[in-house]
Structure formats: C-alpha cells, structure tokens
C-alpha cells in the first residue's frame, strides 16, 4: 500500500491501484473538529477543482468545509457516513473516508505533503 499524502487543509489522499484517489480528513482534523454529527458529500460525477470546498463536515457546534486536495471527477462517496458520521472520529484515515476522485491532473499529487512533512506541519501549528 502506498503511503498517504496530505494537504495543508488537513485532508489526506491515498492513490488506489485502479488510479482513483481516496480522500478524507486527518486525525488532527477530526480531533480539532470534535464529534462529527453530519457529513455532506458531493454527487457522484461532479467535477471538482483543486482547493474546491466540495464536502462539509459538521460537529455539534460548527460546520467546516472540506477542500479537495486535487482536481478530478467524483467517482464514489462514502454513503455509510450518512448513518454513522461518528466513523470520521473513530477511523478518520480508514472507514471514515469521504470520497473517491478520478484525478484530472495527477501531477498535483506530487505537490502534497508526505506523512513526515505533514506531521512536522501539524507540530508547527500547535
């Protein structure tokens, strides 16, 4: 399994063998947000730009936009989050994934951070 890539907005991206990119929010992001009570996901087939706020995650008190780390076409969304939004807190980089994109500009992925770079980035925020 290839390693996760990270955005400065606390999203992770994982390249699957079939060429799609799975996207979610990081453990740091879910901890900052607190208990997730609702996730709004884009429609399958929608084309998104890099940095576009294409999903929304809501805690008890606050709403946060989820920015797309790369551009592409939405090919799948995690419909299980509708019934169990708390999965984002329990397993943010696994079962708590948000959506899968077919990247339109794969070179954008190289601009994302590695695990080590992201951990250093988060340490700099605290």
């Amino acid at each position, binding site marked *: 399994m290839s390693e996760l890539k990270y955005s400065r907005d606390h999203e992770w991206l994982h390249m699957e063998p079939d060429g799609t990119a799975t996207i979610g929010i990081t453990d740091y992001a879910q901890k900052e*947000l607190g208990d997730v009570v609702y996730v709004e996901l884009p429609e399958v087939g929608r084309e998104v730009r890099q940095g576009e706020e294409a999903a929304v995650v809501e805690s008890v008190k606050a709403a946060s936009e989820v920015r797309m780390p790369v551009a592409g076409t939405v090919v799948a969304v995690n419909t299980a989050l509708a019934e169990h939004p708390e999965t984002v807190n329990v397993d943010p980089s696994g079962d708590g994934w948000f959506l899968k994109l077919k990247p339109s500009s794969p070179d954008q992925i190289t601009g994302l951070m590695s695990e080590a770079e992201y951990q250093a980035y988060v340490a700099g925020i605290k």
Partner: protein
Amino acid sequence: MTQTSADEGIADGRRTPLHELHVQAEAQFTEFAGWQMALRYPEGTLREHLHTRAHAGLFDISHMGQIALRGARRAAALEALTPADVIDLPAGRQRYALLTNRGGGIIDDIVVANMGAELLLVVNAARTATVLPYLVEEIGSACEIRHLDDLALLAVQGPEAAAAVETLAAGLGDLPFQSVCTPEIDGAPCRVSRSGYTGEDGYEIAVPAPDACDLARRLLAQEGVRWIGLGARDSLRLEAGLCLYGHDIDDTTTPLAAGLGWTWPTVRRPGGARAGGFPGAGELADELAAGSATRRVGLLPEGRAPLRENTGLLDEDGNIVGRITSGLFSPTLGRPIAMGYLRADHAAAATTLRAMLRGRALTVARAALPFVPHRYQRKSNEP
C-alpha cells in the same frame, strides 16, 4: 479543512483559577469573552452532554461576572434598571432578571440573589465589561458596587448533582430551586444556589479563588461527576430553550419578543404598585398593548444537518419571515434543533417554514420550548 464557525482556534486570554485542573484533564481550550476556557475534554462534547443528562457534570463558569450591591437603597436602585421585582425578593432567594435599555432592548440577562446584607448579581462574561461601568454610572451614587473578581464559580448539573453537593455541606441536598445559602466548605466561605443553565437539577457554587481547585477535586471524586466543557454547556442550554446573550437576545430584542415577559411581573407592569421606572418601560408598555412584532420560537430542521445562527427563515412564497439565532445538533434528540425569531403573524400560525442550506431548501417545523423537559427541583411557585 476550513472552519466556518468561530468555535475553534488558538486559545488566548485570561485564565480561571481552575486552569491547571483543566490542563490536567487534557481539556481543549477556546477563547471566550476574553477568557481561556475549556471547550471540551477528551471524551468529547456529545458524551459530556449525555453524561450531564444522565449523571452529573462539573462546569467551570468562573468567567461570569459576580457583582455585589450594598447599601440601604440597593434594591430600589436596581429596580431602576430592570423590569424585575427586586424589592420583594426574599433573603435567600434569587431570580432571573433582564437589564433593559431605553428602547426596551436587553443590555444583559442576569441572576439577582438577595444575600440579606447585599444583592449579588451574576452577569454574562461577555457583558461584564459593559455592565459594571453601566451600574457604577447609573446607580453608583445610590449603592456601593463591588466586582467580586476574586471568586471562582462552579456549576454542578444533572440528576446526581444533589447527592454530590450534599457531601460538601449537610443540607444542600434539600436547598429549594432558586434558593441560595452561604455554607462553609472545608473552611472556605461559599455561596451555593440551586440553579443552572442546563435544564437539569443542579447547583452553582461561588468559592474564593484560592480554594477553588480543592473544591473541584472534592466534587470530581464523587461518583458520576465529570468535567464538562463550554461546547456541551451550549448544547445543554439550547435543548433547555435557554437564551444565550449576544445570540438569542441582545440590545435589539425585547423581553416580550424573547418570550421572557415573565421576568416583568404584575407589580412592575402598567397599573402595578411599582409600575415602570426602568429604561424602556414606555416602549415595553406599548409593545405589551400592541403585541410584539417578532417572537422567539423553537425550530426543528428536517434531516440531520444543523441550521446555524443567522440562517434566514422563509415562508412558502420565499419571503424572509425570520432568522435563526442558535442552532446545533441535539445530542439528546439525535437531530438538529434551533431557536430563532419569527414575524408574529408567522409565529402564531402553523405555516410551513423553509431555510436554505448550501443551495438546498429544507423544511423547518415549529417546536415547543424547551426541546428537553426541565427537571428543576421546585418547592415553590417561582418560575
């Protein structure tokens, strides 16, 4: 991820006397009204909320302003600033009161306790810097005004609060709702009232700052008592239908529109023995006669997505007929809830309301307040 509500962020500001205990409890902090406050603990807002409804929550509310009024004319002086009945408030009792402005709007919502030798006011943290100089300016010549900023304030709320607080001083378990007393706890002079901001039975305890940590530790050692952060305090109060100043009430909302007309008793209304005599009395008398233009109501948005503050409320033709002032996900009900103001003609009727959320029109139903029934330990008719 980008935050769209001012909830998180680097905590800054003044620390409460209990700060070290929150750090030990691994609190996540947030800046609120110039204070560094515990937003939540590792358990998280949802579980903290449900724990309070099922057991007992301990809240650090030391950021709230505590002000003492002394002098023979203190009650009459305060009545010049509020529609409430202060003069007839018996010693050992407290009541909710509103400070009104000349337009009939609300300067702050406060609690007034008659401590016998003095009146004790608890004011909102975000309003202390406004209310304190206002009191000095308006009634400082009629009574002595002291800011008791050397006191911490704790709240213990929930069905197991009485058992926990009874262990601090005998008899506290029998204190009636909205009564207040001054027991000594471990040698520290305290002020304890049976009151709170969650809709649950509970207590608020003022304690000298140097003794606050020991008192909190004693409470936390009790079965069922846990720290609860500001996040759950907000969701608990909204479920209880209680107003948050600066959101559900402010300088532009009147006590009548806010559904808080019960804080303006007959004795201070037109025809009463001490009618009027407070800022905005004429405006409120007119509003009482003509009816309020808007009304505060409870709202239930369809689906699971919370509707947040300042979301517009639309009638069937798409006209704006109100707006949401507080909205979040109710942990008890497992669904979004909200409060807001509606034009009076829509507040009364069972009209269908809609609200726009990220381009979608959602149906919003009216709901009676509170969303979750109050469980106060009433032993009198005091509301």
